[in-house]
Each structure stands twice: as structure tokens, then as C-alpha cells.
């Protein structure tokens, strides 16, 4: 029985890798401009398209998906609740508020500066969420995500209100409705910061797993509980801010991917972070490719596609019980 189970796990892992590679190839060759493997070798103009647009877009989608999923995973470990993620608990909305404030007060600031400020506000917003979440009765696990939804909604409403008053609603749409069509060379490189954050998360994976066992167990095992909590918050906030600034909010990724991976591989973060990242990259790439194909040659934003796909996956998660393996 153990053999079947382990080989099943390996099949799933292999399938995830294959799907990822396939989607990378698809993402590179699908788009309004003409570009085929044949041209890639012979046509310098086509190569130009490849390096300026297709490759950046594919890399950005993969990075965003991986990072958002890992951010969701970490947030779930910090809050000890499976139904929270940055985009539904005020983190992404706080980041959007941050860029909005920067755009209003220091419009000349560089993208990096805006991102930094967005990260700080995301950190602040998430800290307030965490402090409140830890006070909610643990016997009612659904209160935490519900509170997160309301809290994120209130911050989002502030963003919309300020944007409406200052006639910046168009910009706000860019930050709150994630899409990759604007990603070209020179406009996405900051996203590599999310890879750095994911690497740090993997480095401290054991500490984060201990943290997810609760405060008492953490202290009993000698973990510096507060510092680990703060580090986790910084990782989550930085990833959210970077993706909001460059791509915009993409819903559900941070929610469904960690839950799906946890069903199969469990919650030992040292082992699951790479698979959460790979699955998240695959899902976002897949949704982006789908968005490019559905109304070809026009595009549907990845956030919209993910809203549908993610919701379906989430409903499936809710209605199927965890396999007892």
C-alpha cells in the first residue's frame, strides 16, 4: 500500500513538472505577434520579440504564480488557518493603498521606491490583521477568513474612494486587476525580488513549520516566536507588494495552491515549498495562456481567468475531503 501511495505521489510530481514545461513552451509561442520555433532560429526580428516580450511575460507569470502561492502558504502557517491568503486578508489591498499614496504624494518616485513604500504599508496592514486574527476564538476557524474579507474589503474601498476623488481610478484598475500584457523587458525585473523572498522562505522553512504548530510548541522548542512571525510577515508583505505593483492583484492562487499541495504532500514546509511554487507557477501560466487564447487575438486579464478557475478549484477543495494518506 505504501508503494502505491509513494508511486502515486511521484506520478503527481512528475505530471506537475511536465505541465509546467509544456505551459512555458506554449506561453512562449502563443500571442498576437507571429513567432514559431522555426523563426526563433532564423529571424532576428522574431528573436527580438522573444527577448523583449514573450520571455519576460513567461518569466513574470511563473515568478508571480510561484511567489503568490508561497506567500499564501506562509500566511496560512502564520495565522494557523487554511483559508487566508494575502489577496483576501488586506495585504494586497494595503499594498495598493501604498502605491496610490506614493503616486499622489511623490509621483516622481522610482518604481523601486514605490514598491518599497507599498511593502511597508502591506506589512502594516497585515500586522493589524494578524493581531486581530490571533484574538479571535480559535474554536471558530471560519471567523478568521471572514474577518480578512471584510478587512481587505474596507481597505480596498478606501483605495477606490481616494482613487475616485483624485481621478486615478484607471491606475487603480491596473493594480487591482492583475494582467501580464504590460510585461515587457525592462518593466518586470523587480519581480525577481519575489524569487529572493521565496528563497528566504525555503531557508527558514523549518522555523515556519514549527511556528505553524502554535505558540506554545514553538516556545517549548526554543524558537524565537515573535521574530519568526515578523520574518514571515515581511516575506508575505514584500511578495504581495512586488506583485501588486508590477502585475496587479491575482485572486485565489495563494489560497488553492497551498491547499491542493497540502492534501498530497502535507505541511512540512521544507519539502512542500518547491512544489507549492511549481504548482503556483503552472496554474498562473496556464490561466495566462488561457486568457490569451479565449478571444484570440485579444486578451482576457489573468486575474479574471483566475477568478473563474480559482473559484472552481476552491469549490472542489471545499467539497472533497482530504484523502486519508
Amino acid at each position, binding site marked *: 500500500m*505504501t508503494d502505491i501511495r509513494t508511486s502515486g505521489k511521484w506520478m503527481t510530481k512528475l505530471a506537475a513538472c511536465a505541465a509546467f514545461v509544456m505551459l512555458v513552451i506554449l506561453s512562449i509561442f502563443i500571442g498576437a505577434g507571429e513567432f514559431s520555433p522555426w523563426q526563433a532560429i532564423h529571424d532576428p526580428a522574431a528573436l527580438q520579440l522573444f527577448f523583449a516580450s514573450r520571455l519576460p511575460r513567461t518569466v513574470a507569470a511563473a515568478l508571480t504564480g510561484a511567489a503568490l502561492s508561497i506567500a499564501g502558504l506562509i500566511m496560512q*502557517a502564520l495565522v*494557523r488557518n*487554511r483559508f487566508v491568503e494575502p489577496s483576501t486578508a488586506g495585504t494586497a489591498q494595503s499594498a495598493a493603498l501604498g502605491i496610490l499614496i506614493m503616486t499622489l504624494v511623490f509621483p516622481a518616485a522610482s518604481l523601486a521606491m514605490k514598491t518599497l513604500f507599498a511593502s511597508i504599508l502591506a506589512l502594516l496592514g497585515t500586522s493589524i490583521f494578524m493581531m486581530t486574527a490571533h484574538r479571535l476564538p480559535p474554536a471558530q476557524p471560519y471567523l478568521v477568513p471572514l474577518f480578512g474579507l471584510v478587512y481587505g474589503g474596507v481597505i480596498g474601498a478606501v483605495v477606490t474612494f481616494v482613487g475616485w476623488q483624485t481621478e486615478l481610478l484607471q491606475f487603480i484598475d491596473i493594480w487591482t486587476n492583475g494582467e501580464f500584457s504590460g510585461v515587457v523587458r525592462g518593466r518586470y525585473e523587480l519581480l525577481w525580488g519575489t524569487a529572493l523572498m521565496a528563497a528566504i522562505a525555503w531557508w*527558514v*522553512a*523549518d*522555523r515556519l*513549520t*514549527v511556528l*505553524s*504548530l*502554535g*505558540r*506554545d*510548541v514553538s*516556545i*517549548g*522548542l*526554543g*524558537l*524565537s516566536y515573535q521574530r519568526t512571525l515578523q520574518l514571515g510577515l515581511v516575506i508575505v508583505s514584500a511578495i504581495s507588494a512586488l506583485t501588486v505593483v508590477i502585475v496587479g492583484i491575482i485572486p485565489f492562487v495563494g489560497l488553492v495552491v497551498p491547499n491542493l499541495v*497540502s492534501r498530497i504532500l*502535507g*505541511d*512540512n514546509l*521544507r519539502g512542500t515549498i518547491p512544489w507549492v511554487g511549481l504548482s503556483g507557477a503552472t496554474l498562473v501560466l496556464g490561466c495566462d495562456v488561457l486568457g490569451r487564447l479565449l478571444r484570440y487575438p485579444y486578451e482576457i486579464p489573468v486575474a479574471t481567468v483566475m477568478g473563474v478557475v480559482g473559484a472552481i478549484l476552491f469549490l472542489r477543495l471545499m467539497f472533497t475531503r*482530504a484523502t*486519508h*494518506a
Partner: protein
Amino acid sequence: MIQIENVSLSYREVPILSDITLSLGKGGITALVGPNGAGKSTLLSLIARLQPLQTGRILVDSLPVNSTASRILARRLAILRQGGAIASRLTVRQLVGFGRFPHHQGRPCAGDIAAVEAALEQFELQALAERFIDTLSGGQRQRAMVAMTFCQGTDYLLLDEPLNNLDMFHARQLMRSLRTIADERQRTAIIVLHDINQAATYADRIVAMRDGRVIADGTPATVLTEDNLEAVFGYRMQIRQIDGTPLVLQHL
């Protein structure tokens, strides 16, 4: 040695512990008994630095618990609290393995892996080693938690009602395991117990508490008298002697 000196604690003006002074020597099993709300669990969590001290001080091997680095204390004492629900999907082996965290900080060596295997064997968890803990019964999960605490390999083990959820077979097994590690490896176990006869049979010393105070303290034979038990639990119970061990007929 664990020294508890003049420890008092109150929560919103309500006293939980009143001026406790106790000295728990190295080696042996000490059972904390008493009715609900006596302050046993609070005392245990103060020793394990899970709550800040309000007055008095607690020393573990001369290290003050409130000012010593948590990492250093984690190699001296391990605590298992009651009802600490683990929501994470870890396998039993992974969970028990995290007991070694204070020693390797996430990079286990061969010694750590051997310690995990020994703990799995000691608590008969090998057959369940690859199961996720959220698929286990309450008693199996409790055994996994005890194994994790044991695996931490500390001189002092603080266990808050470790027999919760355990059937008779495994409750006896756990008490015998504790006896073995106390006798053969000179470990010290401080256990909150509700089954007074388990305390009578396996503990070297019983500390009986009520309303945040120590009412009686000594060997089972000296503590388990009808007068003491009435003072602690509020009703008279009969006591029989079986082979020199007191047996309390608590249910009559």
C-alpha cells in the same frame, strides 16, 4: 534541579497561584494532583516560560527561566501542554522529528535521526510513522505528541495530563515508559495527573494543590491520606494498601 521561589500569579485580580515555593530535585517522577482550577497547569507553563512571571522566580539548573535564552532552555526542559491541537498535516515521523529542533535548528544529523527512531519505537509508533497526524485517533495523536516531547531529549519533561485520551493499555504503557527513563536515564518528569492511582503507583513524589496553594507534598504514602485527600478534593475517600502502595477508591 528546578527551584520555584515565592511565585504568585493573578489574572485580572483573581489569584491563580499564591506564594508557591517548591524545589524539585533531579531524577524521579513528580505528580501534580488537585481539582480543576488548582493552578497545576499554570505552574507548569510558568516553569516552561510559556507565560511571563509576575512575582517570584523560577530556576532550572540555576538558570532563571524568564531571562535565559529560549534555545538554551529548550535543551534542558520539554513541555507538553494539554489540548494543544496540531492542525498541520505532518506525518508522525516528521512531528516527532521536530522534537529535535532545539538541537539541530532544521539540519538534522545522524544522531537526531536515531533519536527519532528510538522515540517511535519507545511509544510503538513505527506502524503509524508515515501517517498524517490528522488521520489518527485522539489517543494515537496524544502518543505522537508525547513521543515528540520525549524526543527533545531533555533532562526535564513537563507533561500536562499526558494520559488524556489514552486507553488503559496505553496509559499504563506511558507511565511505565516514564518510569524507565527516570530510572535508567536519570530523567526528571513532572506530570499533571488526574488519576490519583497512577500517581500513587508510578510517582516518587506527589504535590497536591488546591486554589493556587500546595496543600501536601511528599511520597505517595505520606500524601495520600484520607485527611489530605479531603482537604484537596473536598470529599472523603477510602484508601487501601496493596503491597505497600496506597490505592485510593476515589469513585466510591
